[in-house]
């Protein structure tokens, strides 16, 4: 058994930022990550991170209030307004802090952090480092962790990589630690801690067509869900307009921010033909662009009935090489297209889960001692649709906030003395037995088949356009897959370096989160932000201006709802 004051689970942007905040406050912290932190999905983020720095001449009047309003409007008024204000107020300080720590931001002619236009804002607000912003932010935060791992002036900080958290230790309703599977040795251990911060990322891999890394399975949301923490607003899924046809690898919104066009098979900038994108065109918010692209494809104006063209050729070689070198490289390697010479085949793909672990404005969940931040959490600052450039911002702002809150909780005595060591040892041995026996001989199902069927089900039944019939069929299928999941037999035994077992375990997370999502989508009978119901095409503030809360039961999720903070702006029709 190991002991640390606080355990942070996940080594992406939110996790490392939380850990640095705890370390700064002299709290002994351990980061547990199932991959090396630099392999986290944050590294794939491309286009940028929003803050009202006002460094661009067209955005010199920018303020946190304007940024918060755009965020709330973009959310279709489902974001909690004070939380959105906190996001945008802290944004300026956090971006400058990242610069101080060494992030090589692209620069303006006068040497300030450069900003580019992104969807949902009327002027440039998105700070960037070419189109590799996530990569440089993550590397910089990891570098700071390396610095303070060895520094003597602060509290202890340890990073355990390739160790997988499989469960929480919750005793008398208080979170007291985590169970950890050391993947390289096969050992099951417990870490006793006074608080736990989850920063485990999204759940893109419940879909087939997703920009997410293979590791974004949703298990990190499912573990607290199974332990009694509600999942909030999980029906809201962001479909990114421009993902590479075939692999759904991200082509940053920055490509359109820099002036790229979206074209149909008639070579037409079709966004002009739709009321909601006529004015903002390619930099309309993501939900709107993804819907109008899908309409074009359905109506036969796509290519091979599958994709459209992202045309960057008019930007010229120099600008593409300076501002968009990463996506050029990806397009050349994965579809054999050089954007300097030819348009890139793109289609909408699952990109982001707005919903997640229910937390308050301090990153605290309803279970004392359990916190969450980043994509796995739902504060909510993104509501029904997230603006591009706000996700990385949330990771560093709310990563720091959750770290601070957990530090205050621990330094204030937490929830008092915890249970004796016997409780931890008991949890540990039960978990070891569970993992060893979980997929042994009940039937002959292969987890890969279940995963394939889940992905295609979610692609078809819980996609951009939803309706009762599709969602019901999807729910039936997900329930069938959940049953078949209990019939898995693995051909690889043991706990050391057993990927067969790891992926089967992850699949349990995929299935639970898919169920919460699709049942939440079926329950919400309106269209708001990213959720579009063909059978309920209008927003319905009277009945549905509320957060969805899903609680785990043996029979499936039990739904409740909670109010939305509307204390600053009154909901209006969302027009661009």
């Amino acid at each position, binding site marked *: 058994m190991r002991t640390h004051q606080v355990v942070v689970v996940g080594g992406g942007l939110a996790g490392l930022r939380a850990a640095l905040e705890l370390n700064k406050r002299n709290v002994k912290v351990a980061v547990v990550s199932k991959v090396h932190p630099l*392999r986290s999905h944050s590294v794939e983020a491309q286009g940028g991170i929003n803050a009202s720095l006002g460094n661009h001449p067209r955005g010199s009047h920018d303020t946190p209030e304007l940024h918060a309003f755009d965020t709330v409007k973009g959310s279709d008024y489902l974001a909690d307004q004070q939380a959105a204000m906190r996001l945008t107020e802290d944004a300026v300080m956090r971006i*400058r802090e990242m*610069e101080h*720590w060494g992030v090589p*931001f692209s620069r303006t002619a006068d040497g*300030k952090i450069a900003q580019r236009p992104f969807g949902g804002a009327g002027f440039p607000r998105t700070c960037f480092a070419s189109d590799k912003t996530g990569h440089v932010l993550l590397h910089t935060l990891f570098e700071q962790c390396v610095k303070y791992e060895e520094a003597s002036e602060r509290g202890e900080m340890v990073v355990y990589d390739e160790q997988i958290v499989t469960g929480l230790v919750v005793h008398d309703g208080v979170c007291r630690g985590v169970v950890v599977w050391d993947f390289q040795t096969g050992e099951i251990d417990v870490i006793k801690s006074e608080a736990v911060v989850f920063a485990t990322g999204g759940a893109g891999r419940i879909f087939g067509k997703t920009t997410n*890394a293979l590791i974004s399975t949703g298990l990190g949301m499912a573990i607290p869900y199974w332990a009694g923490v509600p999942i909030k607003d999980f029906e809201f899924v962001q479909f990114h307009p421009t993902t590479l046809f075939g*692999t759904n690898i991200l082509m940053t919104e920055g490509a359109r921010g820099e002036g790229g066009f979206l074209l149909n098979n008639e070579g037409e900038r079709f966004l002009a033909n739709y009321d909601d994108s006529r004015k903002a065109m390619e930099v309309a918010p993501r939900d709107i662009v993804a819907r109008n692209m899908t309409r074009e494809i359905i109506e036969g104006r796509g290519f091979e009935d599958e994709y459209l063209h992202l045309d960057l050729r008019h930007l010229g070689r120099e600008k593409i090489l300076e501002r968009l070198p990463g996506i050029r490289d990806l397009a050349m390697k994965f579809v054999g297209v050089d954007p300097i010479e030819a348009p890139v085949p793109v289609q909408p793909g699952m990109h982001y889960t707005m919903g997640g672990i229910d937390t308050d404005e301090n990153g605290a969940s309803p279970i004392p001692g359990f916190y969450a931040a980043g994509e796995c959490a739902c504060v909510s600052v993104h509501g029904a649709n997230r603006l591009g450039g706000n996700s990385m911002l949330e990771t560093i702002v709310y990563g720091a906030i959750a770290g601070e809150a957990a530090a205050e909780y621990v330094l204030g005595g937490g929830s008092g003395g915890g249970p004796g060591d016997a409780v931890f040892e008991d949890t540990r041995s039960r978990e070891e037995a569970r993992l060893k026996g979980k997929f042994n001989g009940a039937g002959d199902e292969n987890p890969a088949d279940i995963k394939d069927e889940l992905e295609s089900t979610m692609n078809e039944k819980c996609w951009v356009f939803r309706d009762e019939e599709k969602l019901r069929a999807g729910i039936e299928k997900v329930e069938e897959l959940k049953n078949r999941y209990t019939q898995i037999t693995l051909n690889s035994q043991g706990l050391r370096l057993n990927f067969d077992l790891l992926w089967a375990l992850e699949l349990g997370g995929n299935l639970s989160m898919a169920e919460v999502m699709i049942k939440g989508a079926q329950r919400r009978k309106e269209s708001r932000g990213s959720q579009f119901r063909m059978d309920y095409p209008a927003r319905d503030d009277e009945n549905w201006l509320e957060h969805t809360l899903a609680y785990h039961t043996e029979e499936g999720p039990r739904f409740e709802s909670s109010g939305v903070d509307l204390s600053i702006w009154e909901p209006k029709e969302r027009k661009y």
Partner: protein
Amino acid sequence: MSDVTFKVFRYDPETDDRSRFEEFTVRVSNGMTVLDGLYHIQEHLDGSLAFRSSCRAGVCGSCAMHINGTYRLACETQISALNSNTVRVRPMAHLPVLKDLFVDMEPFWEKYKQIKPYLIPGKDPGEMERFQTQDDRAHLDVIIDCILCAACYASCTVNNYDEEYLGPAALLKAQRFFSDSRDSARDQRMELVDGEHGVWRCHTIFNCQQVCPKDIDITGSIAIMKRHLMARRLSPSFKKEL
């Protein structure tokens, strides 16, 4: 659609006396990568196969391995581009094999940490961002693209006989901070890479540069640091110190 033969390195030091290559037949579809092939094997043919992966988009650095004669990222290597009916896959060299294609990366990370891989700023910047001219920022282009996949480390022949050699990736990282106008520890950084296991051990063979999936001029970066070290030795103030 055609079939290829994957010849995959298999070895579990806890149970096997020696390594072997195991053959698997994989049906190749359009756009299929070596990583897709390995997943097909792991999911359908032999669940015990061990290899790392994460982003599947060539940016996280998890899946560097030796594929048909050179180091590449499995996720961005199209099987069709190999122009071969055989895909021969081995783990990275110079790092202990823990199982199959899964190596112990610790020696690599240890060396990365040795060069102090973080900005050492000068005076307190206060609340505002520090200014950096576009020209100064341009010095960081390309070298910041390093994803620490360790392909260069595995390809470097010097790593083969000098276990303490810092290796290309750590030296490139040293050059990244050395080149940053905001860093104030240039002397300290030079001292960290000076010495027999530092830049002088580089024999300018260019293997690292050839295998780098991000096309970074690693050998050139090492040469720049060698030049700075020489200039430092020859400078009057330094001579006085001697």
